[in-house]
């Protein structure tokens, strides 16, 4: 059994149209998955159903062998955390310390243990010097890092990033990506919903959503070769691959094509 298994998942807000339709996904422990899709393709809805914020109409979700239900949601949320798009609307604490503690407080972790964990995880996301700062004094990128620390402190080993970089400027975005890379190296399972193809290229596998359905779910390198998947789903390929795909197939171009691929897949 895979670490995360989604079986025939269907979801709708109203009776008429399904936002998710018969979604089947298997994700292994430690994998980094990027989820791409046009606006309204069901990416964020998928993320919310995975953490039990939305209840599926049909289908089942298994996380680490345990089925997600109303009763098991509390246990499952210990394993899986989510960082949302808007940094301001998920910062619950009055200070950085309080916010990292929030999840642990809900798990009834003793205070002494919380204090040492806060220091440890704040250091991990380089926010140790900001523990007493209030959210108004933090940048968007810093708030997102605090959110990560809060999830890590709950000992979760799956983190979903629901367009977590989309409200950041390129610099903070790159910095956040740097931390996500470290998390991946540490063995965490990462599901990253994004619009940015260059971010998606960093993942092991890419899941393309189109109109509520899984349009493709393959290794990053394999999926990038199938240009039609991207054009069909109103997505763009990275510039380097666009060039590579348009080059003639002669031997003279072979070397250049290889380099363009290499560039696209630098991690």
């Amino acid at each position, binding site marked *: 059994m895979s670490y995360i298994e989604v079986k025939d998942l269907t979801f709708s807000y109203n009776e008429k149209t399904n936002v998710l339709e018969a979604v089947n996904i298997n994700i292994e422990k430690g994998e980094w998955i990027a989820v791409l899709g046009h606006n309204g393709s069901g990416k964020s809805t998928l993320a919310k159903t995975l953490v039990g*914020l939305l209840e599926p109409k049909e289908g089942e979700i298994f996380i680490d062998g345990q089925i997600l239900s109303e009763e098991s949601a509390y246990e499952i949320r*210990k394993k899986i955390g*989510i960082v949302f798009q808007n940094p301001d*609307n998920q910062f619950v*604490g009055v200070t950085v310390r309080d916010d990292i503690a929030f999840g642990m407080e809900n798990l009834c972790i003793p205070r002494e243990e919380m204090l040492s964990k806060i220091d440890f995880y704040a250091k991990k996301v380089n926010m140790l010097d900001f523990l007493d700062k209030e*959210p108004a004094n933090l940048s968007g990128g810093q708030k997102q890092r605090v959110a990560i620390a809060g999830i890590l402190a*709950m000992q979760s080993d799956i983190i979903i990033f629901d367009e977590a970089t989309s409200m950041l400027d390129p610099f903070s975005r790159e910095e956040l990506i740097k931390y996500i890379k470290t998390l991946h190296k540490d063995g965490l399972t990462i599901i990253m919903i994004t619009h940015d193809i260059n971010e998606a290229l960093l993942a092991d596998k890419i899941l393309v959503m189109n109109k509520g359905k899984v349009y493709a779910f393959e290794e990053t390198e394999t999926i990038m070769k199938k240009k039609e998947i991207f054009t069909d789903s109103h997505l763009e390929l990275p510039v380097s691959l666009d060039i590579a795909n348009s080059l003639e197939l002669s031997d003279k171009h072979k070397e250049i094509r290889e380099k363009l691929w290499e560039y696209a897949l630098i991690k």
Partner: protein
Amino acid sequence: MKSIIIGQYIPGKGMFYKLDPRTKIVAVLFIMISVFLLQTIFQLLIALSVAIILLLIGRISLLKVLKGLKPIMILLIFTFIFQIILNREGTPLISHPMYFTIFTLIFLILAFIIWRVLAKLLRFRFTLFFLFAGSVYVILRFVDFGDALIEPFNFAIYQSGLEMSIFVVIRLLIIITLSTVLTLTTKPTDLTQGIEKLLHPLKRIGFDSESFALIISISLRYIPTIFDEANKIMLAQASRGADFSEGKLKDKLKQVISLLVPMFIIAFMRSEELANAMESRNFVPGEKRTRINELNFNYKDVLATVFSILVLAGSIVLRVI
């Protein structure tokens, strides 16, 4: 905006910062009650000097507290004047007729214009206000020529009136100072937690003090965000020709709506996202949680509590005697 310091926490060191918020809330409450029990100006003056000595020991700048008093100065002045005018008991200190003639009116208007013009030009607005009030008195008192518009009336200040007004003002002064010290030296989070812990016994009658404290602390956390947002919305609507400082009264209503609707809709979206974020981090309303901010009650708190109890006991004794 800048001068308002009531309810604002300013980081610092000193005795009061080290006290447990519960101690401070209880002590302030006790001392406030005591102040209400005191009956003579003399007792109140002693209380005021004790309060000032405490501030000095606690290394709280008097200047900051005074600045905090500024917005309520008007309230104090009005209380003072009301007490003086309304209280007509005891021996009169001053008693003489006042006149209101056509010339009085002219002089009053003149004084008013001079006051407004000077207030625009000079920086001593407060002093000017007092000068204006003084000149109103002088005009009413001495301009007795010309056709009387109303019958001359008697102006009197009675001893007990004066005493009473000084009494009330000092009492207000002490109370405001005390509450300023409380909020000045206590972090909002600590304050809410202090209140939560003090209200905890109410759980038996079904009052969920923890959720109550959480609601307060989340509100505190979002005040700057919402303030910032309101500002941006105002600018966005001003960009569409709805300048709040220009339009006519008729347009004002529409402008206010153009500010309020987006604010509410954004707040609504925010609360939904916030609820999701809290739920995904395993928050279940009403369930038991541990707390990162623990209050610790030590010997200083014992001393402070004992002190406030003594003050309360003392004033009860004074009252009974």
